[in-house]
């Protein structure tokens, strides 16, 4: 196929040489400079965690030193019962005056009227126990100032355990729906098999 004839315009006289148009990268640069910090700060967090451990036997073999805790351990225990109640054993400051029932070796947080566990009450009484049991002692006077042992019957589902761990791990948040800034409570949580007695 023959080539197209050059346009008449081109034929006419000399045209000044075209200057190379430069790509304006500044706008693009600005956009990228905004996007990078924005993406860095907006990391999606769709999973969270509860740190737990298995109970240890004997309490380790560390030699006694001058800085070792002088007081006996609290040994606070919490049992999740299948009927929706919770049993707290070895509480120092809690009593039936806190709305708890005395049963066997411990105090029981009764379930709500519909049989659901009363998690708010559990959290409230545990917060009282955690904040008041030290009295005037420093936390390092005890070997387990932030420790609690949680146990449950084998057939309790993990969802109930996780909901209970929320109430054990954190204090009641200022606004109940906003747990982002909830203060730490029992940060060392041991999961133990079976129901715990005294």
């Amino acid at each position: 196929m023959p080539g197209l004839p050059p346009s008449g315009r081109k034929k006419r006289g000399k045209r000044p040489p075209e200057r190379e148009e430069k790509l304006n990268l500044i706008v693009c640069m600005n956009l990228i400079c905004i996007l990078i910090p924005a993406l860095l700060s907006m990391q999606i967090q769709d999973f969270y965690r509860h740190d737990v451990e298995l109970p240890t036997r004997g309490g380790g073999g560390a030699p006694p030193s001058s800085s070792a805790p002088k007081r006996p351990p609290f040994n606070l225990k919490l049992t999740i019962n299948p009927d929706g109640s919770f049993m707290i054993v070895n509480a120092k400051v809690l009593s039936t005056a806190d709305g708890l029932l005395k049963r066997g070796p411990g105090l029981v947080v009764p379930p709500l009227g519909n049989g659901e566990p009363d998690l708010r009450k559990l959290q409230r009484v545990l917060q009282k126990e955690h904040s008041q049991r030290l009295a005037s002692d420093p936390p390092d006077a005890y070997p387990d100032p932030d420790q609690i042992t949680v146990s449950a019957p084998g057939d309790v589902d993990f969802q109930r355990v996780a909901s209970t761990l929320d109430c054990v791990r954190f204090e009641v948040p200022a606004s109940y729906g906003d747990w982002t800034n909830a203060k730490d409570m029992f940060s060392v949580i041991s999961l133990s098999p079976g129901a715990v007695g005294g």
Partner: protein
Amino acid sequence: MALYPSKRREKEEEDAEMNITSLMDTFTIILVFLIRQFGTSSIEPAEGYRPPIANTRLAVDRILTLQVKEVGRDAVAYVIGTKPSKAERKDARLGYQQLRADLKLEKTLADASVTDETLKGAINIVCDRRLTYSTLLEVMKSAAGAGFYKLKLATQP
């Protein structure tokens, strides 16, 4: 007496702008990397593994993940990292032996891949919310038996 710059020098001065093309390239690579990271989570749950809903806001770490769900009485299916799913029935005396052995194989690599010393020996455990407490404890024992003592139970908001 001021001299007028020659035409050539004038043109050179006009062209002497900062070359930001290489900078642009770098930024574009960073941007692509960030966009790729943006959509990914540190835990990618496999199908059928639904962690429990909880209020905790402690962030998960980028460490080895073990996913577990019950597939029958005393039987679990599990996924370690991105490996294919496996199933095991509990031995009445020894617990989940195969799970422990598989985790043991991963231990060295898992520790080598984390730079933070506090995360050595740590593992994210994504248990299905219907898992029973007794199975959860058996899984935790298997993990501890393989050298993972820092157990982090994953939850969803």
